[in-house]
């Protein structure tokens, strides 16, 4: 829709002559359609053989008597109390073998009462479908055999007329029922059954379009068309009132359905083809309202006059307006939908013109009204076309959705690939960081020990020292490897390995290691615990044990592990290493008075505790040394000392 509009805007100037010729072609085509319609509709509907025609009648109307030939139009628009009486004759051969005879009335307005030999055999007013002047309902009645006489028989028809148009009686057929009935059936199918079928279809489309409008409020065109269809359906099942009843006034108001319905269709066309809603747009419904008001409040005559002089011309006017709007749409949009609408409206307009000509007796046809039928068919076609278009739009949405799925999948794949790359980069970065840490840890421990092994081996006379240094180096290597393992923040798991190593180290020195876990559950778990924290803590404990073994000449070392609750009520792990050695005197500044090595060891322990955020407490006396390490509430993320 918008595509076509854009196209016309861009290349409008250049395509003008082409467009003009297109419009001319369009109008020529519409003219052709109109001519074809006229020609086709001039053909009379199915009729029996003319052998059974009865055309010569004597008409008694308003007291005057004259002979007439059917078909005949009455002069009056209303004749209920003293209806025109047509009397004629037909011959019955008296041959029983021919079977039953019938009277066939192919077309009449508005009602007939058929009498044969003075006995009423048919009153069409009892048939609601036959009471509608806009339906071309035929009637057939079987003449009871007992009524028939050999030779001439009398047939009389009383024609009831109640408007809004003049009375009409088409040619009459009297003959064997089996000869007349096929054409009766064909006419019933065309003029009674088909409108019902179309109305049913229209009702379904009204529901579909109403649902569509409810779901898509921004497209009122659907709602308008649904309303038009609903009115069309109501009109189709409307009964023409003959007697006064509680609902007769309402029924009379419903006579306004045609102008109202055409108003709705005009509104739909305006909205659908993207016209700006005119300021006095509601005036479209004014004629319909007028007719409805006349039906509601006026008498029968006023109602008929209103319909005839307001309703019917309104319908014609709106049809012409519709044709013009659609022609404009064909001009600007040049699409299949407007073209199709155009052809449909031409057909309806032609039928309406023919009907009008028939009502006004300009054309000697048999007063077969087709505008209503063609209009219903057109509405159904429009509804079907819109539904089809909607389904196609849904398909487009589906294909859009599937292409979106493909796009999303592609984007997802790309994202996944970049995520994998990112992950690899992160892994590489983590690996590099880990390598740096490993290098530093190995340098701190293993490197120093290996250097001392080299130094000792160069001296050549201290084999015992070499062994000790190498063993320390291996011990440290195991510590480093051990610390790389994920212990899930449970320092107890690291201490378990340390205990083994410490016991192996102390066994040759004949020093006992007492291991006591005071709190059964050990120490709090620290999810933020990292390998470098573990290494610092284990090295600190190593220093404490080594000091006790080497310098303090202890015989027994006790390690106790417990969980303490600090002033703030937070559980904190606490590791205590106690020995029964001779201790080392601490200078007031905290420096050990003992040898250089012990002093360095103490400094190291303080620095390691500080790096982990742990508190170190050292008490040394003649009775031994006690190192108490209180773990932090939370281990620091960064190694403050080493950067």
């Amino acid at each position, binding site marked *: 829709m918008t595509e076509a509009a854009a196209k016309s805007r861009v290349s409008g100037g250049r395509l003008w002559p082409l467009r003009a010729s297109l419009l001319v072609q369009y109008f020529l085509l519409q003219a052709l359609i109109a001519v074809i319609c006229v020609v086709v509709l001039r053909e009379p509907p199915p009729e029996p053989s003319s052998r059974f025609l009865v055309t010569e009648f004597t008409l008694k109307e308003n007291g005057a008597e004259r002979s007439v030939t059917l078909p005949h139009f009455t002069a009056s628009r209303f004749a209920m109390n003293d209806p025109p009486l047509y009397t004629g004759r037909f011959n019955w051969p008296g041959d029983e073998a021919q079977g039953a005879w019938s009277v066939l009335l192919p077309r009449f307005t508005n009602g007939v009462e058929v009498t044969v030999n003075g006995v009423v055999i048919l009153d069409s007013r009892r048939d609601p479908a036959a009471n509608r002047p806009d339906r071309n309902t035929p009637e057939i009645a079987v003449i009871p055999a007992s009524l028939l006489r050999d030779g001439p028989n009398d047939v009389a028809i009383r024609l009831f007329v109640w408007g809004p148009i003049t009375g009409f009686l088409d040619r009459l057929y009297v003959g064997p029922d089996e000869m007349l009935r096929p054409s009766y059936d064909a006419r019933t199918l065309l003029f009674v059954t088909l409108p019902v079928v179309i109305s049913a279809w229209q009702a379904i489309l009204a529901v579909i379009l109403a649902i569509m409008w409810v779901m898509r409020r921004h497209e009122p065109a659907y709602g308008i068309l649904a309303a038009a269809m609903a009115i069309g359906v109501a009109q189709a099942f409307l009964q023409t009132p003959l007697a006064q009843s509680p609902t007769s006034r309402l029924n009379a108001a419903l006579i306004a359905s045609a102008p109202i319905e055409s108003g709705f269709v005009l509104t739909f066309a305006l909205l659908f083809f993207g016209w700006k809603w005119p300021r006095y747009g509601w005036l479209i419904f004014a004629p319909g309202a007028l007719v409805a008001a006349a039906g509601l409040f006026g008498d029968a005559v006023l109602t008929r006059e209103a319909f005839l002089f307001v309703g019917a011309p309104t319908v014609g006017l709106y049809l012409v307006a519709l044709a013009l709007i659609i022609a404009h749409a064909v001009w600007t949009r040049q699409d299949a939908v407007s073209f199709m609408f155009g052809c449909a409206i031409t057909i309806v307009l032609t039928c309406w013109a023919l009907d009008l000509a028939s009502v006004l007796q300009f054309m000697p046809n048999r007063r077969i009204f087709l505008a209503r039928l063609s209009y219903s068919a057109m509405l159904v076609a429009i509804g079907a076309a819109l539904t089809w278009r909607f389904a196609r739009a849904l398909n487009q949405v589906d294909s859009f959705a599937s292409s979106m799925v493909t796009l999303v999948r592609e984007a997802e794949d790309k994202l996944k690939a970049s995520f994998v790359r990112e992950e690899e980069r992160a892994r590489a970065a983590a690996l590099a960081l880990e390598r740096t840490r490993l290098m530093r840890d190995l340098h701190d421990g293993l490197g120093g020990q290996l250097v001392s092994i080299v130094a000792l081996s160069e001296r050549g006379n201290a084999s015992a020292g070499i062994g000790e240094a190498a063993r320390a180096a*291996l011990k440290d290597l195991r510590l480093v*490897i051990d610390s790389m393992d*994920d212990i899930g923040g449970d320092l107890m*798991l690291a201490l378990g*390995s340390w205990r083994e190593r410490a016991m192996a180290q102390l066994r040759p020195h004949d020093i006992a290691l007492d291991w006591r876990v005071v709190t059964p559950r050990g120490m709090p778990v620290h999810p933020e615990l990292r390998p470098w924290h573990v290494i610092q803590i284990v090295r600190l404990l190593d220093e404490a044990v080594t000091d006790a073994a080497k310098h303090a000449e202890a015989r027994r070392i006790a390690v106790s592990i417990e969980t303490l609750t600090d002033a703030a009520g937070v559980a904190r792990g606490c590791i205590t290493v106690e020995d029964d050695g001779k201790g080392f005197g601490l200078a007031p500044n905290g420096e050990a008075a003992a040898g250089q090595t012990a002093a360095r060891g103490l400094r190291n322990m303080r620095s390691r505790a500080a790096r982990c955020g742990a508190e170190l407490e050292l008490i040394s006396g003649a009775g031994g040394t006690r190192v108490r390490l209180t773990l932090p509430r939370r281990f620091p993320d960064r190694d403050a000392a080493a950067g």
Partner: protein
Amino acid sequence: MTSGSDQRPSPAITILLVEDDAPTSWRLQDALATAGFQVTSAATLAEARACLAQSAPQVLLTDLQLPDGHGVDLIRETRQRLPDTEIMVISILGDEESVISAITVGATGYLLKDAFPTDIAATVHELVAGHSPISASIARFIVRRTQSQPEPPPGPPLNTAKLTPREIDILWGIAKGFSYAEIAGHLGLSRQTVPGHIKNIYRKLEVHTRGEAVFEALQQGLIRL
């Protein structure tokens, strides 16, 4: 090939020592011979196979990295051919990579290369008596494998499905540094039964056949068919 012998009256325990590094080999031989074991040593896989073909030792001590092959193959062969021979792996670090891979093919203990001579002899004696050594880090590795995780942690494949909750409790105790006596106290066992449990655990971790290995790898999602 060197052979150490001693003249102790009691029937000496025979050991085949497979170690390619000569000084290490000497050191271990000295430690074992001093303790009264009868040690035969081999430096390569081929030598070791030749020795095993001649006589079945009571204990096989083997390094993993050998000049002409991998100690794991030797352990597997020995375990199949000589089921009565106790097998120990000699490890530099006692890390789970080497120890666990040796256990899954049939070893029931490990020995650190730098252990003190008395410890070396004691460990072999314990092993012969049915007590397998285990370190905290090995125990930790095994129990972490018993915890269901979407992805198995890195390291050699290990199927812990056969371990009983009690055995897992014992491993937890060892991993956290408790002594056998403490573990026995906590779990209501007698102290003497704990080392026997360790050997059972090792036996349960052993993968007996190639088919079983494939089955277990499938079970753990390590391979997909």
